[in-house]
């Protein structure tokens, strides 16, 4: 097991991601943030928290998206659905999708399909904490990256969150 980001590093990285998002969307009126269930929402919660600190006067539109019913491997094993909670329209909005690890790109494909069913977004961007480069199975690339790593299929990247796992760290398991 190799540590990729320790707790203090992770906090700085998340802060940077929030700032980068804010840099490109200084006017948040037309921007919505959407975390992908289940594990992307821990990251998106923290990014939204940080953005709130920076621009407390702005109203942030933030939702959570579950992609279970859009997966392409539904029949292989059972996936349990999580809550989708998007209480605003995404029609004509700039959407920032947030997830913890970008690997094959299949989750993002499903998320894009789910998003299309909720309206026509003006633009969709992708923000991820860990980008596992060179392992994509679909032509998808992130716009905001916490850290890029090179890994092989047999390796697994695990992100631990305080709320869920009691500690905050990113590790690679051989």
């Amino acid at each position: 097991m190799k540590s990729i980001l320790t707790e203090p590093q992770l906090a700085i990285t998340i802060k940077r991601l929030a700032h980068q998002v804010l840099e490109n969307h200084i006017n948040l009126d037309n921007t919505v943030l959407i975390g992908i269930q289940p594990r992307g929402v821990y990251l998106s919660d923290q990014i939204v928290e940080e953005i709130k600190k920076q621009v407390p006067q702005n109203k942030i539109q933030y939702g959570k998206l579950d992609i279970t019913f859009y997966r392409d491997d539904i029949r292989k094993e059972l996936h349990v659905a999580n809550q989708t909670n998007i209480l605003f329209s995404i029609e004509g909005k700039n959407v920032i999708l947030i997830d913890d690890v970008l690997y094959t790109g299949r989750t993002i494909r499903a998320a894009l399909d789910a998003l299309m069913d909720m309206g026509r977004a003006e633009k969709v961007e992708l923000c991820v904490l860990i980008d596992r480069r060179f392992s994509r199975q679909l032509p998808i690339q992130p716009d905001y990256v916490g850290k890029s790593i090179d890994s092989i299929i047999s390796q697994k990247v695990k992100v631990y969150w305080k709320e869920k796992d009691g500690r905050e760290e990113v590790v690679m398991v051989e």
Partner: protein
Amino acid sequence: MRVSNLPSQTGLVVGGLDRQNLRRKPQRLTRNLYLRTLMGLSTKHLLGIKDLNKDDISLILQTAEQFKEVLQRPIKKVPSLRDVTIVNLFFENSTRTRISFELAEKRLSADTINFTSSGSSVSKGETLLDTVNNILSMKVDMVVMRHGASGAPHFLAKHIPAAIINAGDGINEHPTQALLDAFSIREKTGSLEGKKIAVIGDIMHSRVAQSNIYLLNKMGAEVTVCGPPTLIPKYISEALGVRVNYNLKKTLEWCDVANVLRIQLERQNQVLFSSLREYNLVYGIKRQMLDELKKDIVIMHPGPINRGVEIDSDVADSGRSIILQQVENGVAVRMAVLYLLSSRPASN
């Protein structure tokens, strides 16, 4: 490794570990539920509530909540069952259940075929098994069936490989109705545990009553059945663990939720009460009666309603009734059942 250390006591050690795991269960509930949900439902078919366990029911209701959210979206459709073909076999009349199932299948992007026995080769004398096998040879993955004979879906399940969902069989079970009733109760009152539910009316001929009783018992609700003695099976309290009360007023005073059933005239081949008017006078739900109660109770009805017989129009259309919400929830619950049964890894 421990087993190999104690070769002579292998069985005991394994047994001991099992018991230990059982004891640890309550503390590790979330993890256990998680593991359970990874395995999916404990059954391949939905033949009746009788075969489901508490986890199955919780999983179905929990999944239905997510589908209910899907149904509020501008595009009320998900691609989950794109590659699944479902046949709806209705050997008995139905409006709600058939439309609800068909809509649920379409909302999941499944391909559907509808079959009704009138105008089919059933009238030429084809047997049930032949009919279904012929349909299955056209590559159908799931069967939704309503049949007038109790046990017809169980018979099919023994003989064909496709997943079968019982949409009502004779006077036996109507599992999806019970699930949607439970979903509606949970939505309206928060939970099922400890709730007092009265099932009122024609218990004898009602598959809805039987499925409801099984489900509510499993989920920890208290059930009282109420109706004329001729319409309540004699040993029901011993067989199904419910209370029996022949007095409507007392039953309504006791319960939180009243599920009023339809008088099934088509299944009664002897006279079990004098007249519909008399039934209405003694067992019909009237507004005055509900106004006199010291509390608000929720009124449910599985439909179709015989207005002015088991329930009066002003009650059925009042704010107390959640009859139309039940119908709305039916689609989400059926989507959950179809989704969970289709998600089982293919056995071949």
